[in-house]
């Protein structure tokens, strides 16, 4: 069965491109969210295998969303952070599978972290 993915990002153009790219590489994109609260709701409803989570979101930031997901019982998707900033600018972030720079997103890159 294909790996189900939730894409969380406040930029619609990135969400559209990422969906197209991942679907073409065999992933099942089950939903999108544009902010942290939306992401928490979507994870509860859709129970995706992977959450592709932007570091910077308009309400709660990506690492905080990841921490809340880790704390919630029964919800344990693999969280992968994305950012268009330099990885070194982000500092240490715990509780996630890994990090993919947005411009380097690909099915292979995602697969490597799971």
């Amino acid at each position: 069965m294909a790996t189900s993915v939730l894409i969380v990002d406040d930029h619609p153009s990135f969400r559209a491109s990422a969906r197209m790219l991942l679907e073409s590489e065999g992933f099942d994109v089950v939903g999108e969210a544009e902010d942290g609260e939306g992401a928490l709701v979507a994870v509860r409803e859709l129970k995706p295998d992977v959450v592709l989570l932007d570091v910077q979101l308009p309400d709660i930031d990506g690492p905080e969303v990841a921490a809340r997901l880790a704390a919630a019982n029964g919800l344990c998707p693999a969280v992968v952070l994305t950012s268009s900033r330099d990885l070194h600018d982000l500092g240490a972030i715990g509780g996630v599978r890994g990090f993919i720079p947005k411009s380097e997103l690909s099915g292979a890159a995602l697969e490597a972290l799971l």
Partner: protein
Amino acid sequence: MTSLGRALWALAAAGFAMGLAALALILTNDELEAAAAWGAGTLVVGWSFVGVGLFAWARRPDNRVGMLMAGTGFAWLLAAFSFSDVPLIFTVGQIFGSLFFAVVMHLLLAFPSGRLQSRLERRLVLAAYLLTTVVIAPMWLFADAEALHCDSCPENVLLVEPNEQLVTTVTSALNIVGVGLVVTVLVILVRRWRQANAGQRRLLVPVYSAGAAVMLLLSVTVVLQASGADTWTLDVFWIASMVPFALVPYMFLVTLVRARMIQTGAVGQLIARVNEAPRRGELRDELARALGDPSIELLYWLPDGERFVDSRGHDVKLPAPGSGRGVTRIERDGELVAALVHDALSFDRELDALGAAAGMAIENERLDAELRAKVAELRDSRSRMLRVGLEERRRLERDLHDGAQQRLVSMALNMRLARDRMRDDPDAAERILDGAGAELDAALEELRELARGIHPAVLSDRGLDAALETLARRAPLPVELNRESYERLPESIELAAYFVVSEALTNVAKYADASHAQVNVARRNGKLLVEVTDDGVGGADPDNGTGLRGLADRLAVIEGRLEVDSSPGAGTTIRARIPCG
């Protein structure tokens, strides 16, 4: 002669005539014992109050003490009308016989500023006026000779039905309330005395002591009257009360003369001391010492900013009229240089002399204060400039990150996707590449927009006119551009003007729902006046919204000012005044 002068002379004539009338009434009263003593006492008290009051009124028309003093004199003379044998005059004199009591109370509480200082004081005085007029008047409908304990008195013309019991009760009640009022006033005076400093006490003591003595004696008289003391004792107390009462106006004169002497001496001392070049702030201390008013403040006028500052250059507001503090402006060669804030009673002409004498020292301190204020302003504007700069960098980073960078990221993804699809599905690859091309165009346009936000190239290349034309052309609504022709201005000024118009037009497009906007640019009095007006919904709040606030900060750095007129429904006008150097 001024109209006030004419009015005061008319009042003086009225007071003179009223005094003579009172004297005639007393002397022709057959029943009165020692009529000459009563007459002389009444006349001295009445004329003293009217005379000194009118004199003080003429000298300080803004201070009500003179008016109240003259009012006391008139009320006193009116009370003497009760000595008349003519029923109507007798009745009027009786009804208003205790009014002077209320005016004296008002005078004592309002001394020396001429204003009542608290709500309690205003209520006390109002109560006193009401008691001695409106409340007491109806009693005269029932007071006959018997009720007044005065068989030989003329007829009360208001008498409807004699009722001795009622009159006695009302009189006793009013006396009790009256004594209560007097005690409250005395408590207030004592409290005020305690709070006063040495300099203020010197001014308060003569009037307060005479005033307090008369209030006390009058209260004792009232109590004696109520307890049924004999006429002889009452007369002694009445005449004893008259002595301190007659002294009140003269004590007031002594106070004025003393204040004047203190100040005249102060001028001499100051001239000697200020020549020794006092250090910063010492001039104020010298003034406070010499004038016996430690609370005195010396404020310097900064003509540029049209504001007052203290010797450290900090902004200070003048006290509002009615605050109990007096303000004397000091001019030098017709120009305002400073203001003295002091006790309300003190100083008037003497301070002009002082201003002239200490003018040089004051001007020196003023320059010093001005310099300090300028330094503080520069420090402020430097930190504001830093803040504006930082905020702009933050905004740029955000715009770059959210705009062009995101488009380029998704382009990178799309390019990779297109490459993967190229062989299997060339049509899809072509569609993806088309989309990527559109993203690229959008990214380029956003970058251009950002670059313009950092610095519009057209402004440096072709000047403000051309830059404003570009802004007007790009705006999504018709913009009428009116500008006078002038030479090119320094770049910082042109840039500020450009951003005012740019931000204002952006706001018009976003929020105003306007059909038309107008941009006016003109030079006025060494300032560039930039005005953007629209016919939209109005209601813009300059304190709410980072755009306008940032603009105001940006202008403040170059000492410009931003005004926003935006009543709901009446369109918006954004106006900037930028000094052209």
